[in-house]
């Protein structure tokens, strides 16, 4: 494998890490008003992701940074073409991050309700936008020869990109419900499991639609493999959840996601960002890659950095591995 293709895979992997990790913390935020019936339960839900959501978000920052370094043309075209969607994503992530951090800083119901609203809204908006731009990226954008957008912003909205937005949203909901089942105890856990088992299949329909569109429009023979694998893993996940094996269920859900991401990026290759005006204007892996020296440099950094990241992030999850319930949450302590 040459270096540009290797970095294409690395970026797919970073997106996978991002969708897997922030997928469940988006889901927790989205489910907050549905599963968390009282304040104590909402605090339990937020605290299941409390120590880790910030680290999860860095996967997005690194995905963008790595794209900038490895494929500057891809980074420039995607972010400028989807300017307003990215703005909305930024505003949502700003609100979300601040809300988690500030929610418990004042002991007042009004204050907490206000920030809960921000968390819920931002947790719904972010996966919608991520799904929209990622699938628009896979299916192509109206780019001219220079990689700039032709026409208005509406060019980003197409059937596949809207399905993609719903797909990431649906996935985050299911993934979040699996995660809450895995991380909590008592009534909250029962409720989250019931939610996943009842609504899981319909919520994953957009994901199925998305991969099928990708397969039939730009798939190749081998991309059938991850597609089938994704379905099998998802089904197995639900079965394990039914048997109260939440850990395995959550892991299988991750396998399904990995297969979907591999499949989608697989149908994208050898492009990084297709132009749907003229195939000759599509940005390709080879055409937008940085020089071999730059790629070598960041390969070394990634070779040493990534294992370390996996180890200490994994360790964080280990440190906070205990299920939490309402009785574990300490009293609010804030200046009055």
């Amino acid at each position, binding site marked *: 494998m040459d270096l540009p293709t290797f970095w294409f895979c690395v970026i797919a992997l970073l997106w996978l890490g991002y969708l897997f990790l922030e997928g469940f913390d988006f889901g927790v935020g989205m489910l907050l008003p549905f599963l968390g019936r009282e304040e104590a339960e909402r605090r339990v839900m937020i605290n299941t992701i409390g120590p880790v959501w910030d680290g999860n978000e860095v996967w997005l920052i690194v995905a963008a940074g790595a794209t900038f370094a490895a494929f500057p043309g891809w980074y420039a075209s995607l*972010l400028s073409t989807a*300017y307003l969607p990215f703005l909305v994503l930024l505003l949502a992530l700003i609100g979300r991050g601040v809300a988690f951090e500030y929610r418990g800083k004042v002991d007042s119901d009004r204050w907490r309700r206000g920030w809960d609203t921000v968390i819920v809204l931002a947790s719904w908006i972010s996966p919608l936008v991520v799904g929209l731009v990622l699938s628009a990226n896979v299916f192509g954008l109206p780019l001219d020869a220079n990689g700039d957008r032709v026409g208005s912003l509406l060019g980003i909205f197409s059937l596949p990109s809207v399905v993609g937005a719903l797909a990431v949203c649906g996935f985050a909901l299911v993934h979040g419900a699996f995660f809450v089942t895995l991380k909590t105890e008592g009534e909250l856990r029962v409720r989250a499991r019931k939610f996943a088992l009842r609504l899981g299949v319909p919520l994953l329909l957009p994901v199925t639609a998305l991969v099928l569109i990708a397969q039939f429009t730009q798939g190749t023979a081998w991309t059938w493999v991850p597609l089938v694998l994704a379905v099998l893993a998802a089904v197995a996940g639900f079965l394990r959840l039914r048997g109260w094996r939440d850990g395995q269920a959550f892991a299988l859900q991750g396998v399904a996601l990995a297969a979907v991401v591999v499949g989608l990026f697989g149908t994208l290759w050898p492009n990084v960002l297709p132009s749907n005006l003229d195939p000759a204007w599509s940005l390709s892996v080879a055409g937008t890659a940085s020089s071999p020296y730059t790629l070598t440099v960041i390969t070394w950094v990634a070779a040493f950095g990534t294992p370390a990241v996996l180890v200490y992030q994994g360790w964080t999850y280990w440190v906070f591995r205990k299920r939490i319930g309402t009785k574990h949450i300490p009293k609010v302590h804030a200046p009055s």
Partner: protein
Amino acid sequence: MDLLDIARWQFGITTVYHFLMVPLTIGLSILVAGMQTAWYRTGDRRYLKMTKFWGKLMLINFAMGVVTGIVQEFQFGMSWSAYSRFVGDVFGAPLAMEGIVAFFVESTFLGLWIFGWDRLSKGVHLACAWAFSLATVASAYFILAANSWMQHPVGIVFTDGRPRLDSIWAVLGNNTVLAAFPHTVFGCFAVAGAFLVGISAWQIWKHHRDTVGKNPDLAGRTDEQNEDRKVWHGSLRLGAWVGVIAFAGLAISGDLQAKLMFEQQPMKMASAEALCHTEQPAGFSIFAVGDVGRSNCEDVKSLTVPYLLSYLANGDIHSEVKGVQQLIGEYQAAYGSHYPDDPRLGPYAGKPIDYVPNLPVTYWGFRFMIGFGAVAAAGAVVVLWLTRKGRYPKWRWWTPLAVLSIATPYLGNSFGWIFTEMGRQPFVVAPNPNPSGVDGVFMYTATAVSSGVTPGEMLTSLIGLTSIYGVLAVIEVFLIVRYVRGGIAGVLPPEPPEGKKESDEALSFAY
């Protein structure tokens, strides 16, 4: 306003705003790690109180630094896509390194620190504090290496009209970043120092006035009160020492940086001095009257210290310093007098290039940077003198003044960034007229902006970001004020009676 103006305002606003959070985060997280180390080594409860109190303020601020940082990274691609395409081969590498090496460490270990008070052993928990605070410093290094490359492009070969990275070590070891990094980090400590001084002074005034000028161990006060008084007095002295040392570092690194700038970007320094014509020897301008107006340096009458500018520029009081007028000619000869006639340049296509950066901004930006820095340092020295041996001044105006002084290093930092970024205009990647870097690699700001974005979209984001930043500023200040007023009791719950602690507590410090 056209697209370029909006994009520049947006970059300026988001950057200055981001850099209100970053210095306090960097400076304070190192100091908090130091306080926690002191607690770890001595077991003295005073240090625990310090760690908890200043740590809480650090966290309130940290959140804002993180979320505004994401905007910075995405903005390059969103608003400056032509720039990103041009420099991606070089500029992206330190940015990716910042993510992999610094951001992951910062965010992961910060989470461990916040939630790990009882779950981790004391030593491991302390190590987490050092991990995230040192990672903030590492992150500053990578981003400054990227910025320094824009000021002084090195480590590249120029092929097919694009810079290609040739040596990452040259980029990371750029003499510009070697000067800018200590300068910036000392600036961060100046902010943290003033923050400690101002807030501690207020606390002493509010809660411990009766101990002013006396031995803090007073009869008739609880041990807790006496201990708190020592916490504030200790924090105050620590802040003042940090402020003094930071200023010394700022002066030395700033002088180094200025000498490099005279060599690498002579126009920036000539504008900073409003030095119209080449002089030998040249004097340093203290204050200017008359019109420091755009592109017209002729009417400036300034009060100067003879020989000083020559010394600052070259370390030699008799040396020549080039003036704006002569440099315009040199820049035109080297880089052309008109923008290319390319429709993608919009209103700038084919127009003459103005090589003189905005004079009032560069001239006063430079002076305010130094001036506010000096005021902060003088304040720190006065504080050290007045609070020696447990003393504390009794004057009424003392506390408000100490609180106000928190603003001085912030202002110094902001003016410093405005000066260094605006002084580089009209370039976004500045060329090296005295080639110590790679000659001929440069990019005009007018050619860097995204060409596929409409002014309407750009304006939407300018308004959106500025409004949310405004709201968040109010909230952050509200929270900081609240926690400052709450003092130690607001961050450290009273000790539970022996043995009553729940053993299966999963979280000690939850959201």
